[in-house]
Every structure is written in structure tokens, then in C-alpha cells.
């Protein structure tokens, strides 16, 4: 199925914003509608933004009103540095339930749901395999609130998929994203001048570049990929190797025993290590990304290259800090630019119908072909 009318939840998250930018370049896509509680943080050309909390009746009205065929859910909070556990739970578990409720129903137009999840679903334990594949289960119960949320949200997605066999449901489990714009526990840790490690441990870690995050989401929109897919760059690096690539000194200062007791202390010193990273700094996590690669997606960066890009960015960051002001969403301006007839979108070209108008025309012609007698009122002539 070709996705033409797409709803993106979590437009203001990094993932949602980048996906909308990617999809805007695709001429086959007729409409992109983004929803979130807060205004978007990236500049968007034709994506329409609706500010809405995740209440299912409101979202359902949007889905039905805009005849959405594909819902991309990028709203999951997978890192507890950005919000409180309570808010994260509300968003992750209740929010997912509401979005799925809005996608379901007998008369629904939704044919595809893409759910952004996290490799944190697998956890990080001593007896883990070195490379997780998608059909493995976790042996241990979730340890932290964020992990519990992710497991719970994914299980409700699985239930939805079982109840709606005609809908293509894709779950993408992302490794930690790294790049100039994405902020996670690991990006904060690796931004420190000296990177702390747990004494006696050198965990294997895997990341994914932010361009590949947007690319994989767009790939899932463009192709039918039912099931679960790990999204991680090629190559699993030891933490010492990562720190070496960043040309930083490593500080094995966290004690191997009683690590949990020391974390509040170093937090006072300004180093914040969220609870879900504690086990990862010990055992790490590797993913098998071969299923995604077999589906036709070509990852642009390996983990090593991702780290190299991050290093370039870290060098430039102090120089670029004040160069460009942050983007601010102004509803009036955006609405004017999108809808005012005075705005000249492409001054050199003569008049061309918009995609919206072509789609409507196509539908009218189809209706005429089936029933030549009937001409619906209100259709453009």
C-alpha cells in the first residue's frame, strides 16, 4: 500500500519533526498532519500542525476528517532525562492506548501504523545474548519505569495488531540515537569532558545516527513491513572505543559494587546518569539489524561513523552556539504561508494545481467513471 495521507504523532519530538521534513520531499504524499502538545521545533513547509493532547476522540476526528491512511507514532519517551517518570508513563502507556483507539474501529481509514519503540525493550542483563534478534523475548522483568512503559506500550501495539489483521503494523526498535540534534542520556554522557565508566566494565554499545532514524521511519512509511525491526547501525563498539574515537579521557570512577549509591552523588556534580543506563554501562547491548537490512533499507552510517560525526559536531558546537537562533513556531505566520492566496509559492512557474487539488480531481473522475450520472455537489470543476 502506498501511504498518501499521513498522521505523525509527536511532531515536536526530534523524530517526528525529522520524519515530517523527510516526507515533505516525497511528491507521492498528499497530506502530512502532525499532532503534539507543544509546537514543532523544526521548520516545516507543508506539514499541518494541530496542537492536541492525546485524547482519542479528538485524534479520531482528525483521522477521519483527513482520511488518514498511515499513522506514525513517534511520541514514545524512551529516555528519562527529558521528563519525569510520571509524565512519561502518562504519555507512553495511556497515550499509546489512545492513539491506537483512534486508529481502530470498524470504519477506520487507517491501513498502516508505524510505532517507534526502543531497544530498551530488551533490557540489559548479564545473561543476554551478544546480538538481540527481533523474535527474542526478555528473560527478566523490566527494571526501570521507562523500560516498563516501553514493554507495556509495545504489548498494547501487539494486541492492536492481533485485532486488526488488515492493518500493517510496524514496530521499530531503535538503538540510542546520536547526532547534533537528538538529546539522550548517552549524548549527555558523551558530551562530558571526561566520560565516567564503571570500574572493571567495558560494555558493548550500539548507536544509530539521527539521519538513519528519520530514514528508517520513512522507509517503514514507504514500504509494507509488518512486524518488529531493530534499527541500529552496523558495528558494536566497546565504551572505551567510543570514548577513544571522541578523543576524550575515560574515567573509570564508578564503583562496580554499590553503583546506585554513587549516582546521586555524581548527579550533584552535574553528571546525570538515568537509571535505565545503569545496567547498560555494565553489560551494554548489541542488536542484530539484519532483518531491517533484508527489508531493503541501507543504513548510511556505521556506529563508528556515527561517533566520528558526533565528534565533529562536538568540536563545532561551541562555535555554532549563537550563530542561528532556535526556530520558533508562529501559528499565524505558518497559516498565512500555507493558505493565503497572496503567497506566491513558486514565482517563476505558471499556475499549477496543488497536490490536494489533483487528488480531489482524481477522486471526482473515479466517481464519474463508476457512475457517470452522479456529479457530487461541491466538487471543484
Amino acid at each position, binding site marked *: 500500500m502506498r501511504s498518501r495521507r499521513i498522521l505523525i504523532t509527536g511532531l515536536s519530538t526530534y523524530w517526528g519533526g525529522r520524519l515530517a521534513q523527510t516526507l515533505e520531499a516525497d511528491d507521492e504524499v498528499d497530506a502530512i498532519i502532525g499532532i503534539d502538545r507543544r509546537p514543532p521545533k523544526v521548520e516545516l513547509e507543508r506539514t499541518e500542525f494541530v496542537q492536541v493532547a492525546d485524547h482519542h476522540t479528538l485524534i479520531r476526528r482528525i483521522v477521519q476528517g483527513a482520511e488518514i491512511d498511515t499513522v506514525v507514532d513517534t511520541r514514545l519517551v524512551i529516555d528519562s532525562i527529558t521528563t519525569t517518570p510520571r509524565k512519561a508513563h502518562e504519555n507512553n502507556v495511556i497515550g499509546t492506548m489512545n492513539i491506537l483507539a483512534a486508529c481502530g474501529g470498524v470504519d477506520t481509514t487507517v491501513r498502516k501504523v508505524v510505532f517507534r519503540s526502543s531497544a530498551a525493550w530488551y533490557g540489559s542483563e548479564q545473561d543476554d545474548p551478544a546480538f538481540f534478534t527481533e523474535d527474542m523475548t526478555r528473560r527478566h522483568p523490566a527494571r526501570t519505569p521507562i523500560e516498563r512503559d516501553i514493554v507495556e506500550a509495545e504489548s498494547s501495539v501487539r494486541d492492536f495488531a492481533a485485532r486488526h489483521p488488515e492493518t500493517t503494523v510496524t514496530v521499530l526498535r531503535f538503538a540510542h540515537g546520536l547526532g547534533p540534534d537528538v538529546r539522550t542520556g548517552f549524548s549527555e554522557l558523551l558530551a562530558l569532558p571526561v566520560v565516567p565508566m564503571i570500574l572493571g566494565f567495558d560494555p558493548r554499545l550500539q548507536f544509530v545516527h539521527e539521519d538513519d532514524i528519520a530514514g528508517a521511519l520513512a522507509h517503514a512509511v514507504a514500504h509494507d513491513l509488518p512486524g518488529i525491526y531493530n534499527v541500529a547501525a552496523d558495528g558494536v563498539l*566497546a565504551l572505551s572505543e567510543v570514548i577513544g574515537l571522541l578523543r576524550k579521557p575515560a574515567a573509570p570512577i564508578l564503583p562496580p559494587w554499590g553503583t546506585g549509591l554513587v549516582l546521586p552523588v555524581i548527579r550533584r556534580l552535574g553528571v546525570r546518569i538515568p537509571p535505565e543506563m545503569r545496567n547498560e554501562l555494565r553489560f551494554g547491548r548489541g542488536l542484530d539489524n*539484519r532483518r531491517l537490512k*533484508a527489508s531493503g533499507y541501507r543504513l548510511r552510517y556505521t556506529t563508528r561513523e556515527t561517533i566520528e560525526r558526533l565528534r565533529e559536531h562536538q568540536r563545532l558546537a561551541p562555535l555554532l552556539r549563537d550563530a542561528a537562533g532556535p526556530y520558533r513556531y508562529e501559528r499565524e505566520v505558518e497559516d498565512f504561508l500555507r493558505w493565503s492566496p497572496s503567497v506566491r509559492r513558486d514565482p517563476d512557474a505558471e499556475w499549477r494545481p496543488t497536490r490536494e487539488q489533483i487528488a480531489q480531481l482524481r477522486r471526482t473522475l473515479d466517481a464519474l467513471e463508476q457512475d457517470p450520472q452522479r456529479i457530487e455537489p461541491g466538487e471543484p470543476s
Partner: protein
Amino acid sequence: MAQPTPDHGPSALAPADRRDLLPAIEPERQLDDWGFSERVDRVFDRTLYEFYYRVWFRCEVEGIEHVPSAGGALLVSNHAGALPPDAAMITKAVREEHPHPRPVRPLVENFFKGYPGFSMLLPKIGCVPAHPANAHRLLHDEGQLALVFPEGRKGSEKLYKDRYRLRRFGRGGFVETAMRARVPIVPVAVVGAEEAQPIFAHVGVFQKLTRLIYFPITPTFPHLGPLALFAFLPAKFRIRFLPPVRTDAMGDEPWDDSGLVQEVAHEIRARIQEELFDMLAQRESVWLG
């Protein structure tokens, strides 16, 4: 949407054609995806292993031709010694004596991944945590040599009085792994490791205190402290590689037949035990061989 199987083992969704989708090797990197460091391994190989192999244990190797030159194979050996030197000596034997020297990846207990220090060092010298999925990837997808001690810690913690009496061979998991990966099993018998670091007793209290897997009393431990890890008695080592057991001609999905799995495991155990007694009967001195 695919339902995840309760099985935590090798993936049914990674068929043979996914082999070519394995990540390419990046020459710029110092470690591989398992955390193996050629540099660290070379240092160990040229110093400690070299010394123990040539001077201290004076290893003698038979039947090296039974180790295949290409493709995966699972080496299965008996296990002994508080800090078993047999893994390093078998690895070194393949590297020194084989016409096509290949790295051997010993599969080690998960415990080491959780213990500070070991967790950092062991992957760098080629050890891989023993997990069915890890073994499958090594043997089937990457076509490497893996070394497994089915006795596990029951082998290395056994007391000196029980020397050369093989413990139970796990639950036959190693046979199942080899069958799934469709690689041969090469049984290996090692004589000498039992005398190199004999264990006279275990101290439960200290084991709990240090959170080690066991706290043994050996000729050097604990009074020499951590140094005792590398203090072995100079026993003469003999390593005998036995003819491989093929697993690819046992039917379509032989791993589903748990009776067959147990039978093969039992057979391999019996062959190693028999070979050990044979080697011991010929041995004239523990130290001179």
C-alpha cells in the same frame, strides 16, 4: 506482526541467506563486534601463552588435522583447574600446530560478564559468553571455531581427588547448538590441567564475600592473592584432538529429537573419558609426561 517465540535461543528468522548481511569489518577499528582486541590478544599470546605453552606446560598436540581448516566447528573439551589453563592452551595449539592457524573463541560462563575486571578483559582476548544465540552466530553465521566445556564450572571446581572423572555434560545444549549450526563437533581430551592447579577444598564464606563463582584452596591460592591466578604447577600437557562427529547427516531437524541429542552428548563424553584414561595409562610422570 510476528509473535515472539518464548525460545531465547538461535533465531528462526535468521536463515542462511542473512549471512551476507553481517556487518562489514571496518579496518579502522581496534575491536570487533564481540569486543575482541587483536592487539591485547597478541600481547597475551606472545608473552603468557607462549611461555606456558612452550616452557611451563611443554604442550604436546596430537590429531590437529581433525580441526577443519575452514568453516565453523565446535571443539568440546574436558575442563579442570581453578583458573583453567586448558582453554588458552587449546587456542594456542590450534594457532601453533594447525596448517591454517585460526582463532578459537572459547565460550565462557555468563558469570564473567558480570564480574568487574573479567568482564573487561575476557572479551578482549576472544572469550564469548556462552549463550545459544552467540554460539549460533559464531558457528553458523561467521563460520568460526568455538570451544566449549560442557562440564562448565562443575568441571573446574571439582576437587583434586576427582581428577579426570568427567562431570555431567550439561543438558546436551552444545550438541543442539552444533546441530542447529550444522557444524561438526571435535572432541578434545586434555591431560595435565588437573595437576596444574589442583583444588583441595572450597571455602563457602569467602566465596560469598568476594562474589566469585567459587573460592578454592589451591597450592598458591589464596595466600599468593590474585597473582595465584597465573601460578600453575609445571605439569606436562597433552592435548589430543579426536575425529570430528558430523551433525549434518543426522536428519532434517535433529535438534528436535532430544533423545538423539542426549545420545550424541553421552557418546562424546564417553569418547573423551575413554581417551583420557588411555592417555593417563601411557603417562609415566605427571611432570615429565
